[in-house]
């Protein structure tokens, strides 16, 4: 089984620990993972801001970079959703515009092989107990694209509930958007911050020292607000929790 890591541009540049955690975790589960260096970004910021044609070269790059792998695994709900939901859409639009079926074919090629991390663990590898150890209370924020586009359901919670030492603390209003929304955060800063403040408030009221999600971009927004408020709550990507063990406990960001 040839497995490639699609680390995403945000994780590559700002959250390399999350990428390293995926490598550590998958290796521990007996899966060797490659990092094809031709990968960059799925094109989501372009597409969602209205620059569909600017996302096309990045879609072609994605297909090229990950050609020949059985599975493409990404620690990001929204990037996985971009590939699965919007690549086929981009293909259909290009065809409707009389620009041929090439993009549609590329979409068909990559969509069935692209997995968000929790899907890959639960659906492909068939594991929920990954042998992790994380002795802290954790509250989980289901990010919108994981929840409503990928339909991750309770996969993340099932994985978390098997982590030794971890206490999963329920979050009020969990399924409400945190207000990040990509370029929304800077185009509509007032509403984005109001949403983020409300989310941060719910997170703080859990009393958990850690808030976990499957998207670092949302955690960047939530953590940015928590940090500005001087809250002690730490945002941690699910992959980093699952990668931690008694022998190699979670050490925080390096």
């Amino acid at each position: 089984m040839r497995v490639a890591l699609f680390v995403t541009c945000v994780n590559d540049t700002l959250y390399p620990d999350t990428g390293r955690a995926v490598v550590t975790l998958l290796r521990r589960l007996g899966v060797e993972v490659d990092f094809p260096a031709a990968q960059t970004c799925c094109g989501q910021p372009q597409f969602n801001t209205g620059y569909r044609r600017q996302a096309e070269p990045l879609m072609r790059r994605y297909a090229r970079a990950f050609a020949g792998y059985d599975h493409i695994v990404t620690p990001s709900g929204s990037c996985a959703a971009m590939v699965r939901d919007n690549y086929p859409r981009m293909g259909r639009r290009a065809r409707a515009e009389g620009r041929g079926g090439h993009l549609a074919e590329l979409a068909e090629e990559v969509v069935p092989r692209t997995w968000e991390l929790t899907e890959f663990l639960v659906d492909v590898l068939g594991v929920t107990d990954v042998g992790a150890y994380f002795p802290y209370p954790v509250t989980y924020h289901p990010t919108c694209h994981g929840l409503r586009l990928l339909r991750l359901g309770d996969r993340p919670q099932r994985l978390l509930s098997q982590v030794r030492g971890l206490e999963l603390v329920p979050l009020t209003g969990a399924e409400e958007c945190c207000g990040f929304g990509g370029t929304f955060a800077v185009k509509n800063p007032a509403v984005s911050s109001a949403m983020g403040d409300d989310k941060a408030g719910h997170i703080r009221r859990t009393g958990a020292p850690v808030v976990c999600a499957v998207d670092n971009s949302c955690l960047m927004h939530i953590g940015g607000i928590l940090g500005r408020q001087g809250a002690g709550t730490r945002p941690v990507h699910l992959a980093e929790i699952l990668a931690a063990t008694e022998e190699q406990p979670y050490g925080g960001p390096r």
Partner: protein
Amino acid sequence: MSGRTHLGMPSFPDASRTSTRNTTLRANLGHATRTIRGKRDRAVAELADWDRLRAAGAAVKDRTLRHLDHYLEQLEERVTAAGGRVHWAPDAAAARRIVTDLVRATGEREVLKVKSMATQEIGLNTALRQAGIAAYETDLAELIVQLGDDLPSHILVPAIHRNRAEIREIFTTRMGDWGRPAPEGLGDDPAELAEAARRHLREKFLRARVAVSGANFMVAETGTLVVVESEGNGRMCLTLPETLISVVGIEKVVPTWQDLEIYLQLLPRSSTAERMNPYTSTWTGTTDGDGPREFHLVLLDNGRTDTLADTVGRQVLRCIRCSACLNVCPVYERAGGHAYGSPYPGPIGAVLTPQLRGTGTALDASLPFASSLCGACYDVCPVAIDIPEVLVHLRERVVEGGPATVRGTRTTIRPAAGHAAERAAMRAATWLLDHPGALRSGQRLAARTRRLHPRRLPGPGAAWTATRDLPRVPAESFRDWWRRNRPEEGTDR
């Protein structure tokens, strides 16, 4: 007398900068939407076949829209045969003119209004007032808005932004200007407020000879119009006057009564969280000695045919105005309905208004961006309108321009003003991301200078750092770490 309109309103980001700071509004909307969200979820969960109902609701609307010309002609023929008259209004101005002329012809100086989105859309009350005709809203929330010289902020509950204390204040100070004043010592108990409104409206119901309504549905096979409501004021307006004028968007037609059955299940559970709608009124033309003697149906296009020409955007014409998307929208809940600068607020407004009105003003061009694309609206939509898909589609029209149909003519829209810098930045970002070597250099530069990064960013970044800390740039990107640890692995291509 209400004179506020949506003309010249600020863009969504500007309007919401003010409205998000209004703590009363935030409290009113937060409470109201949370309550109705929960009720809606329970009402929908009761039906085992909700998903199939929803799919049927979408399919029937799609099929009807594909053959809209056929069903509208059938409707016209049946309404006419039943004693009604049909008028075709290509735009808002035509609709205003038709209704004003019809009211003038009766010689009356006042009309009763049944709550109607279409008449809000065309600005009918203002037009009537300019013609010397008083239009009285009879829906409780619409009355609150009218008395308060306010604008509606919600499709179902136009005064959702008001609380009991504010409503009591409006009734006490303004009711007398419009008719029977509020009783002395009016309190803010909902039942007491409703009783004051009932007494105020009752004399109008018994006096008025002309009513103006919209309609939720029009059944083509019999020429029947349908209004669903909760208060009974609509029933009064539809039965007591001599003349009834209904202004209805052309997308409201359904082929048969059997089709109607789907929507009479979908709509109440989605909008008011009721299993069945309390007052469902249907009428077909006129009937001697029973109800209005004269019935006029004004069919409104006002951008709907143009919308129908757009293969992605046309799905918004399925909308049955239930408002479930507003009640679940985190953006609407915090910005409030007025920030959308249109009778259609919330997610549906953000996809409907820029199609009906175009994207020519700063406000209308900002609406497709008034969403975090969280997808909650799509989940609850009873006719499965993929609102996020249409939002992104309209964003493209705003920033890149492209083909669109305007007043029946296929044209190429130019990008909206003010997006040139963003367009250049996006193109630069795409170039960078399509050159991994350059990306790596950028990452290394950022890592080397990380101690110098400011806590507050200039330019567009200031919008981020005003309320949020920046993430710290790590000493090494993932890609560099991988290369250091696995030199035999792939190279940048």
